[in-house]
Structure formats: C-alpha cells, structure tokens
C-alpha cells in the first residue's frame, strides 16, 4: 500500500492511536495490492513474526478469496481514513468503534485525549506552525521539534459557569 503521501508526523500519530491494535499498523504497511491476485494463493505473514500467517485459513476457494480481498479493501480504506486529516477525533472514534468495537476503541480514544490534556496542562507540548499540539517526550517529539514553533508559556483555562435558561 502506498503511504508515501503521509507525513512522518501523521504516521507517528497513527501509530500511537493504533498502538492498542498494533497488528493493524503492521498490516497497513505490508498489505500488497490484491486486485490482481484472484486465483493465486494468498500468503500474508505477520512482519513481526514470520511464523504467524494471517491467511492460513484463507482462501478456501475463489469466493472466499473475493470476500477476503473485499475485507482487505475495506480495511485499507478505513486505515486511510484514520490517517487522514479529514476526520475529527470523534469521527475517528466512530470509525474505530466500527472496526474494533466500542470498548477498545473508546478506551484508546480516552487514553489519547488524556495524553493530550496532560501535555497541555503541564506545558509539555509544542505547537507546530499549523497549530497542531504535539506532546513533548512522546514518540513524535524528536522529529517534530525541529520544525515546530516556540513553546508558549503556561496558562489556565477559565470560563464562566453555564446558566441554563
């Protein structure tokens, strides 16, 4: 799968987000183009463990293979959506829910939101030239800081209390 258009920052962010589903990232990197593979025995190995054959039960026949390929295409589209900047975090949560179920997806999103919040609260973050907030000390920091803008000083979110009418 061609991910050449995806920036390193996006890949790292995606890697963190899918850290709870590490096999997904591996699949995303290694998926070959399946479109022309009908009729050929598919053999996809776990890049982290060659003895682990993802396709050991597939395909049993061409119909199963077609279903398998369609599933992979769907997965590829979902992964591309997760890596894009077109969806907001809550929309990506909905996509993760569709892919993995409510519990794991919400848990990963909650952890991610908490990590960002901690970075903002502690000031351990940098703001890039686009305004993207990147935690310092996380996986992306060494690569991001070279192109990032100066850190802002600490601050405390404020606000007036909500008064329902």
């Amino acid at each position: 799968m061609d991910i050449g258009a995806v920036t390193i920052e996006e890949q790292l962010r995606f890697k963190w987000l899918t850290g709870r589903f590490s096999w997904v990232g591996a699949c995303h990197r290694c998926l070959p183009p399946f479109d022309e593979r009908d009729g050929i025995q598919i053999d996809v190995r776990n890049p982290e463990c060659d003895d682990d054959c993802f396709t050991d039960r597939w395909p049993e026949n061409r119909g199963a293979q077609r279903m398998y390929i369609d599933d992979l295409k769907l997965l590829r589209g979902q992964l591309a959506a997760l890596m894009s900047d077109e969806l907001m975090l809550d929309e990506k949560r909905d996509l993760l829910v569709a892919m993995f179920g409510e519990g794991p997806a919400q848990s990963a999103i909650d952890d991610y939101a908490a990590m960002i919040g901690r970075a903002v609260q502690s000031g351990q973050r940098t703001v890039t030239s686009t305004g993207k907030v990147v935690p310092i000390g996380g996986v992306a920091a060494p690569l991001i800081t070279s192109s990032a803008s100066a850190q802002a000083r600490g601050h405390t979110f404020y606000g007036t209390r909500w008064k329902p009418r």
Partner: protein
Amino acid sequence: MKKIVEQIRAMRLRWPGFEVAEETADKAIWFGSLVGIERPYRLMIEYGLPIASSPNELFRIFPLVRVLSPRLVPRFNVADGAPLPHVYFDEYDITLSPLCLFDPEASEWLHSDLIALTTIPWAADWLACYEGWLASGRWHGGGRHGRAKFSEGANS
C-alpha cells in the same frame, strides 16, 4: 502595553496564515486557521486597546477568540452540565462563544503580551482539548471556572 502595529507585526512573523481583516490604531481583527489534533479550525481573533469610553468591551480587556468553522458542537448531556467547556457563553449564539484561554484573575495575560506568543498557541491548546472532549466526553486540559465578572460582556 503593546501597540496594535506591534501585535500585527508579531502575528505576521509567527502566524503568517492569519490575515488582518481590520486594523485601526486601537483595534485589530484577524482570521486564520489552527489545527487542534486532527482538523483545521477557522478562527476570528478580535483585540483592542483599552479605551476610557468603552471600558467593558471584552475584546479591549483581552483578545477574543471565536471558532467560526467547523462550528463548535454543544453537548447538553455531559456530566458537568456545561454544553461547551471553558468558554464565555454567548447568549445569542453559543457556538460563537469566545474561548476562555487563561485565568484573568491570575493576570496570566497582560496587554504587554504578544497575542502571537500567547493567545494563538493557547487557542491551539484549547482546540486540542476540545477535540478530546468531543470524542471522550471529558475535558482533560484542566482549568477552572471563575466569577461571572466577564460573562455579561461576551456579546459586546
């Protein structure tokens, strides 16, 4: 106290994507975009120097940041009851409520500060926490709620 021209110069240098929509000797308005976590948000920044004839105009007390698009999404069923986190609620259009980016009672922002080095990165912080709030239902950015000192002025 920083002059408006100084604020505009710093904004141009630090955030060249923000365009000045209005500029006078005592007021400026910028439009520009910031990315919180995932998507860019279009913002309006309004700031004016304090003047004796309009001492209560909120944008002359500190820079006002409003999110224009995508519109903020109020949630009326969240645990703490507030449909948006850390804003000065605008009674006419809640989605245009100015963001509460710092504690004014702690003097975290002064007119001697540059908007480019404070307000804008703080707004990015807010947007990142807002996206997390939308997705998780919890505000993880900390902060506090103060007295109603500024609540009536948001619609100035």
